[in-house]
């Protein structure tokens, strides 16, 4: 059974500016992959707990001690655009 996908919505959620031709192609490929994955629906896994992580680990925190951090200039040196100690980006709010 083909799986219906609102590919435009998925692309928007994923922040990918796809052309309509690309959306059509990826939509068809995703449909085929999800159809294959439909085999999972046949499994009886009622009551089976989900696994998010292969090893049992909980709250693995390091001691809260001051450590050396990355050099700010070296980090900002990789930015496409900056202003002083900040990353600079196009507007993300409309002016009031």
């Amino acid at each position, binding site marked *: 059974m083909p799986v219906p*996908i609102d*590919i435009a*919505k*998925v*692309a928007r*959620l*994923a*922040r*990918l*500016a*796809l052309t309509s031709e*690309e959306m059509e192609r*990826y939509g068809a*490929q*995703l449909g*085929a*992959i*999800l159809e*294959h*994955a439909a*085999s*999972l*629906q046949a*499994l009886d*896994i009622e009551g*089976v*707990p*989900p*696994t*998010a*992580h*292969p*090893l049992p*680990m909980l709250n*693995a*925190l*390091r001691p809260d001690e001051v450590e050396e951090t*990355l*050099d700010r200039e*070296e*980090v900002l*040196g*990789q*930015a*496409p*655009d900056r202003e002083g100690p900040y*990353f600079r*980006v*196009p*507007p*993300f709010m409309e002016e009031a």
Partner: protein
Amino acid sequence: MNGDPADLTIAAAAAAMCAGELSAAALLDAVRRRAAATEAQLHAYLTLDFEGAEQAAAAADAALARGEDLGPLAGIPVAVKDNMCTRGMETTCGSRILSGYHPPYDATAVARLRAAGAVLIGKTNMDEFAMGSSTENSAYGPTRNPWDPERVPGGSSGGSAAVVAAGSALGALGSDTGGSIRQPASLCGVVGFKPTYGLVSRYGLVAFASSLDQIGPFTRTVADAATLFEAVAGHDPSDATSYRGPVPEVRSTLEAGPAGLRVGVVAELAGEGNEPAVLAAFTRTLEALQGAGAEVRELSLPSMSYALDAYYLIAPAECSANLARFDGVRYGLRLPGDTVEEMMAASRRDGFGPEVTRRILLGTYALSAGYYEAFYGRAQKVRTRVIEDFARAYREVDVLVTPTSPTTAFRIGERTDDPLAMYLADVGTIPCNLGGGPGISVPVGLDGQGLPIGFQVLAPPLGEAVLLRAARAVEALAGFSARPAPATSGVG
């Protein structure tokens, strides 16, 4: 010294350096000559840094001259997959979105290699963000298989497998999320080892699927794989998922042999789906193990048939979250846009190749409201089943075995238009990542076309000692010593 030092194992090179028969500088020179002869054809490296390597080799030679004991990796030329951060050395992940990125820090695994005196010669090609099984998804062009340049080296760590096979490094690091170390090792005729999840720090490894990713070595022998593993494994406070207990001790049992070893053949993965030559080499190896005193039996692990489908929901889901960080703000490619959202969507569209885009879309869909439980939630439950099946099997046997890859190296371009066919290349390697235990591929023979065939050994989490013991036994019994024909220098 006989032969070209570029063909030495790590152990033999270290012994020759210790005995004063070889210098780190001479070894580096041999590897540089080999890279010069093979790279135009193979394109296994994305970055080569012989200036930095010369300094590291000189430091190793100076320490040797002072009589210091530097350990087994001092002066050994190694390569690192391009998804591990190297301070000041370009790290692209095979992606256009990270073109020109120079990390401000070393990945922990890289820092540990440097601390062990290894000579880092460069960064190896890979499928973009480690998504792929052929290294054809690199934004910088494919790597070719040293055994047949018309064929893929496997992937996603295809560059690391190819350099070890070709002699343009003595060892290399790769990463394995669904088989990305073991499958290319199989296709290139070298040893590829994925340790237990959490044993090697992921700090500085560009994340693909965080609950599955693990760094591990490529080498020409199992003993060399143990050496690289010992150098990079161990707890790291910078990786909250790194294992806190002691690293399993593997050296003392490495040569214990197969006698008394309980070996389980995974029925679901050792049958019809494999090419006849692959199956024949697998069966031959099983018979040799049995003849040498191992106890071989077949076991059924029903969830193995569903592992591939579960993986192709879990890995894309995790990747869609991890790759959200590539947004044109802090590093990497940025395209113009009137708003920040337009800038991000345009940068990501241009920066990611088709396979990465496909998986981000698939993962975003699988995690989106209304579909989460049907896809991602269900896949996580199947993952529990895989873990349970493994646990049940390991109550009866010490190790499980399968062919590493159902086929030998396929032709470049053969599967690029069919994502599902490409995904099937990982059917034998994926369950290990879902389960979290270690796995290794050992070369055991060649098919009728002279292409290498790998034998996979799996063990329970932290079962590295028995895993490497079994792998060493397979290596000794198979006696695989073939090497790819030397490249005819610089033909593209």
